[in-house]
């Protein structure tokens, strides 16, 4: 069993190539490998400051409910429990992580106030001398709920009369500059459907996908002698976390220091600012180091997954395979809060109608609130599921036309200089060459006319 380093294929775009690479094309040891194989790489949980306290969360047992009361009596009586934080202890309890780039409104509490909007939402944080005591304390918090109707489906959430999930948005969708969704309007799709030889419409759907990092989300916060907090975290976004945490704590950014960058698997699941703020508050209130780390169940159940999506694609297609119109209606399930999903939905819109030159495009991409676990980033979020839908659509169109699916793609592939639906001129596309190379590598025969196509010319079109 051996593997081979794939040689770089330098034949396409030979004239544009510069060959002064020092790393690409050669074998270079990973700079972190020695630390990994000796066990000396320091992950956040490898720090063990003296006097460490452990934080465990009491979480919502309901999908959607009003909180009538929280009783901490039994929890506080557990030996070893030091303190229990509620929303009243968090200086700026309401936030949204993308506020750093101007996204509004703040829509998510660090700890629930009067309502829970998804199963597993944090309500209060139990800080104790040992992990076992913190777990015991968290289990003994009593919450009195008044159940509210819940909604779990994006289209049901947008229907008339659906229960309102998130009052801060006022509607069950994120509003983009006054619009109910992210839109693309290019040409006239309805006219294209009238002119087309065929109209194909299909529906695609995905479930939420958990990133499932082997190292769970967590942090250790250590108060420093100079009054600052040192945060050891496995966040994938150190400065993003630092800035958001400072805003939530209401302290200047320079009062926090993040030690991070060593992540035991993230895959997008560790860009939310979810454990650090409450651990920092606990460390400030107790003046002791505090660890807050998800257990495996929390990682799977409450850490934000890749969003579920539902996508309708309707294509206007000519007999020769040219797609002259594409209408996309896309719903992204944000769960109960926005987090990174308004951005993911924008990415989804930006990705439509795929890497194809289609003269008439219409897209509505909705960021929808439901009572499901808030979704967020994961490897190409907003794009991956869209690609699944787009490429499935291409295969189905090809099949319906009895056409080679690669030829259908080559015929419609964007070329350098094409105006995309977003009014950007495409450059450096290379899709034609990639499809040709892939066909060659798998022994898929293409006719001469298709082998001669290029992303830099309009030959063969």
């Amino acid at each position: 069993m051996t593997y081979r380093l794939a040689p770089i294929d330098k034949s396409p775009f030979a004239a544009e190539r510069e060959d002064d690479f020092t790393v690409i094309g050669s074998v270079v040891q990973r700079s972190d490998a020695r630390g990994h194989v000796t066990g000396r790489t320091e992950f956040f949980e490898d720090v063990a400051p003296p006097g460490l306290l452990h934080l465990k969360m009491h979480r919502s047992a309901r999908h959607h409910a009003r909180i009538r009361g929280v009783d901490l009596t039994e929890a506080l009586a557990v030996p070893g429990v030091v303190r229990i934080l509620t929303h009243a202890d968090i200086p700026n309890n309401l936030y949204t992580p993308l506020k750093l780039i101007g996204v509004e409104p703040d829509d998510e509490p660090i700890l629930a106030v009067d309502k829970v909007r998804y199963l597993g939402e944090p309500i209060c944080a139990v800080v104790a001398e040992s992990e076992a005591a913190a777990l015991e304390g968290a289990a003994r918090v009593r919450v009195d709920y008044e159940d509210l109707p819940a909604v779990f489906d994006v289209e049901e959430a947008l229907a008339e009369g659906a229960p309102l999930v998130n009052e801060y948005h006022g509607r069950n969708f994120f509003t983009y500059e006054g619009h109910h969704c992210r839109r693309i309007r290019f040409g006239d799709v309805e006219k294209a459907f009238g002119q087309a030889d065929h109209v194909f419409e299909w529906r695609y759907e995905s479930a939420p996908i958990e990133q499932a990092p082997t190292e769970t989300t967590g942090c250790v916060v250590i108060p420093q002698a100079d009054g600052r907090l040192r945060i050891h975290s496995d966040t994938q976004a150190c400065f993003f976390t630092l800035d958001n945490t400072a805003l939530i704590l209401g302290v200047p950014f320079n009062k926090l220091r993040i030690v991070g960058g060593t992540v035991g698997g993230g895959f997008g699941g560790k860009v939310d600012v979810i454990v650090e703020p409450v651990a920092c508050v606990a460390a400030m209130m107790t003046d002791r180091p505090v660890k807050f780390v998800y257990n495996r169940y929390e990682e799977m159940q409450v850490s934000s997954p890749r969003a579920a999506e539902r996508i309708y694609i309707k294509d206007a297609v000519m007999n020769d395979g040219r797609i002259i119109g594409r209408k996309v209606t896309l719903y992204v399930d944000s769960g109960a809060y926005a987090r990174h999903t308004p951005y993911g939905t924008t990415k989804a819109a930006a990705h439509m109608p795929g890497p194809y030159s289609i003269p008439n495009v219409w897209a509505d991409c909705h960021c929808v609130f439901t009572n499901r676990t808030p979704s967020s980033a994961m490897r190409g979020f907003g794009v991956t599921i869209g690609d699944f839908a787009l490429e499935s659509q291409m295969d189905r169109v090809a099949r319906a036309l009895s056409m080679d699916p690669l030829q259908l793609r080559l015929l419609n592939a964007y070329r350098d200089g094409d105006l995309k639906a977003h009014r950007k001129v495409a450059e450096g596309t290379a899709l034609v060459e990639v499809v040709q190379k892939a066909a060659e590598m798998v022994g898929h025969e293409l006719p001469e006319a298709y082998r001669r196509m290029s992303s830099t010319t309009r030959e063969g079109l």
Partner: protein
Amino acid sequence: MIQAVHLPESAEAVAVHSARGGWIMGGGTVVMPLVNSGAATRSELVSLRRAGLAGIEVRDGVARIGAAAPLSSVEEHPELAFLRPALRTIASPTIRNLATVGGNLFVEQPYGDLAVCLLALDATCEIAGPAGRRDVPVAEVLASGIAEGEFVTAVVTALPEPGTWYYHKAMRRKLNSASIVTVASVTRTADGVVTSTRIALGGVAPRPVRAVSAERLLRDRPLSPEVLTEAGEAARADTAPFDDAYASAWYRARVLPVHLRRAFAGR
């Protein structure tokens, strides 16, 4: 929270702690995840690790396997080689170094493939408890459990005659995956037809079950693919499949005949 971990050095001493409400722990593969997540319902653990219950003896065609024997020691025992393929379908080698024979009787389906084997083998459980010792067929232990304060000290089984042991487990992956359907059987044939058979199934009911309908159907008939498929279809009457992350109840029922056939015919 756990208040005490006891390490009794004899079955008698285990019985004392068990009678006081201690939680019997073999390898810890079931108990410790609950301890670690704060979900343990009892405060005292009673480890069997030093209780002298891990021995394996094979004499005169009968094996007596201590309840605290790790699955790996059964796997490695030269005279229990017929069980080796079955054991290698259970979890991973690292888990098999901890998980015990006794513990396997009490894990939830779709785990517990050794229990399925022991049911097919018509093994007997030696049980100790406040009321003394008793021997109980494994079928009874699997169906109705044991009394509060009791614990299994060993399982005893006759070794199957050469050529009479069959085992097959359908999994989502080749290694370390729970059962979709497990089939274990001791089946004797003469002149090309089945003279006696005992078939146990895992993965298709809340507990390991006997496929009595399939057993009835196979008697005096050849182990041909057609007859086996018929028997597998009949076996659905003996099951109560469930949905889980590995497979749906529908799927388990659908593929049961295929895997029952494969257990005997190999394909």
